[in-house]
């Protein structure tokens, strides 16, 4: 493929290709549906680019391998689906605690437990309010194949810039779906003739903190353990400062027709595609509907919601999710009682349909 040419590719493969284009030199993963295309793509292409691919013995090992690769300065990624992400939680907390960059892809499936392999959005809590200890991950939720490519590339930049784990929150539908992609790949994607990493022009920030051998400098330690009284609290306050900065700078959303909207549909990822269709139909019917699609789900785009609601104008938020109500909590916090917040959700394989969204919206306005 030459530069500037579109190819037809799945969401999962687009994420893998984006990582390669972002200068990811390390990938470890363990098979789980519906993200197997990522690990397969990486096994094929990562070695051709001169990077390291490992099929690990478990998700525990995969995320700890990412920890190790990142600790020595590599751009590193793993991918999994819901149960596998649960297994990774301990190490993600360590990665946050050691302030290491990492990219973690969750192609969500339905739960709880083994659940099934149908798409769902029921790991929103896990990505935005993660595991043990006071930490955060940036979490980005694309809603098309093109956007999956773009946010994944950007995830590596953000991870390096803030030294933070970044989640790509995808789902089984987006992962499997094929759409045209315009990639700015440096090498060839289809013919396997990739350039070696050393010749690829990606700007890696110099990672002065990495453990690379102490030649010519003092020894470096990558760690998350703070034993002395007061030390951990001081460190945690520094982390909180970092999170504040990220909240101020990195909120990302798509907002359509929200200024005159009586009802703002709030949905992300695959769900937002259906919400967008529903909004268009509602507008045709003369209903003033708008769409707010969070792209960063952490930091949650609360500023735009605040702006919409502080004026005192009457507006209803209808939050639509492939879950039984997770993101709706963040919408309620952002709205802070200034507007009505309603919810429509299905999970376990079911997806709220356009018709259900339209009916619920109309019912809301009529009551």
């Amino acid at each position, binding site marked *: 493929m030459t530069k500037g040419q579109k190819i037809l590719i799945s969401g999962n493969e687009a994420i893998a290709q984006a990582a390669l284009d972002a200068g990811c*030199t*390390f990938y470890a993963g363990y098979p789980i549906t519906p993200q197997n295309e990522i690990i397969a793509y990486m096994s094929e292409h990562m070695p051709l680019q001169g990077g*390291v691919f*490992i099929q690990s013995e478990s998700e525990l*090992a995969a995320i700890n391998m990412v920890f190790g690769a990142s600790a020595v300065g590599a751009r590193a990624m793993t991918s999994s689906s819901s149960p596998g992400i649960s297994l990774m939680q301990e190490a993600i907390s360590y990665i946050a605690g050691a302030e290491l960059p990492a990219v973690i892809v969750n192609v969500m499936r339905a739960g709880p437990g083994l659940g099934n392999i149908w798409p769902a959005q029921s790991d929103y809590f896990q990505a935005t309010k993660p595991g043990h200890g006071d930490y955060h991950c940036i979490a980005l939720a694309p809603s098309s194949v093109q956007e999956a490519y773009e946010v994944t590339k950007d995830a590596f930049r953000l991870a390096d810039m803030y030294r933070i784990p970044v989640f790509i929150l995808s789902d089984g539908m987006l992962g499997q779906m094929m759409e045209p992609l315009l990639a700015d790949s440096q090498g060839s994607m289809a013919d396997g003739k990739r350039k070696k990493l050393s010749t690829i022009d990606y700007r890696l920030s110099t990672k002065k903190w990495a453990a690379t*051998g102490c030649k010519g400098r003092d*020894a470096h330690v990558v760690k998350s353990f703070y034993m002395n009284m007061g030390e951990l609290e001081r460190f945690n306050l520094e982390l909180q400062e970092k999170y504040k900065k990220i909240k101020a700078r990195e909120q990302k959303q798509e907002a359509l027709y929200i200024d005159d909207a009586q009802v703002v549909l709030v949905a992300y990822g695959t769900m937002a595609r259906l919400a967008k269709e529903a909004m268009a139909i509602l507008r045709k019917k003369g209903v003033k509907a708008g769409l707010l699609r969070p792209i960063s789900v952490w930091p949650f785009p609360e500023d735009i919601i605040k702006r919409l609601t502080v004026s005192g104008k009457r507006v209803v938020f209808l939050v639509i999710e492939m879950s039984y109500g997770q993101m709706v909590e963040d919408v309620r916090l952002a709205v802070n009682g200034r507007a009505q917040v309603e919810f429509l959700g299905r999970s376990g394989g079911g997806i709220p349909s356009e018709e259900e969204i339209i009916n619920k919206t109309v019912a809301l306005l009529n009551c």
Partner: protein
Amino acid sequence: MKKVFSRTSSLRDVDTHYCSGCGHGIAHRLIAEAIDELDIREQVIGITPVGCAVIAYNYWNFDCVESPHGRGLAIATAIKRVRPQNIVFTYQGDGDLAAIGTAETIHAANRGENLTVIFINNAVYGMTGGQMAPTTLIGQKTATSPRGRDIGNEGYPLKISEIVAQLPGVYSVERVSCDSPKGVLKAKSAIKAAFKNQMDNKGFSLVEVLSACPTYWSLTPADSLDWMQNTMSKEFPLGKIK
């Protein structure tokens, strides 16, 4: 006056937090000496465990990465693959390497990763208060085997070195014991060989070091050495396994 002995440069001039008679301090020193004799301090990346030795990086003077409990060999695998020019080793207790981290241990060994593993077997969990370890001897009393380890309930002491030695990807496995000056010298040469193997790209080398925990054996440091010589090394025979 002629200087005949000095602190090796990979060891910092600080006091350790270890109990008196603890084997960790000896093992730290042997590793530091081996590294300096091979002149690889500036290339070394050490992986410290969760266990009593978590802050070994405060005592060593080279780059270190602190691992989650048991995952040292996953971390080391990635580091060595990304930076083959470095010398990478893990330092792990028996709980870390042979209980919670068993899968990582077996699979790194089976992949034949070119790594050096220093496995500290003290037959208990030190850091958490002397609970039973996979390597606790039959009949040994611990905080969680108060009537002594009973094979009906707790199974047998796990001989992870013998298991790992079966794997074709593994280059060398040796068990040593820091129970006497002679034992310490043997341990040193085994540790040095395990680093040298990595420098020569030989593959996975593991040294199991029997190491005293007088605190949770409820023995004096001197009696601990006797127990290692007369009891522990009967269950865990010393020597080259592979």
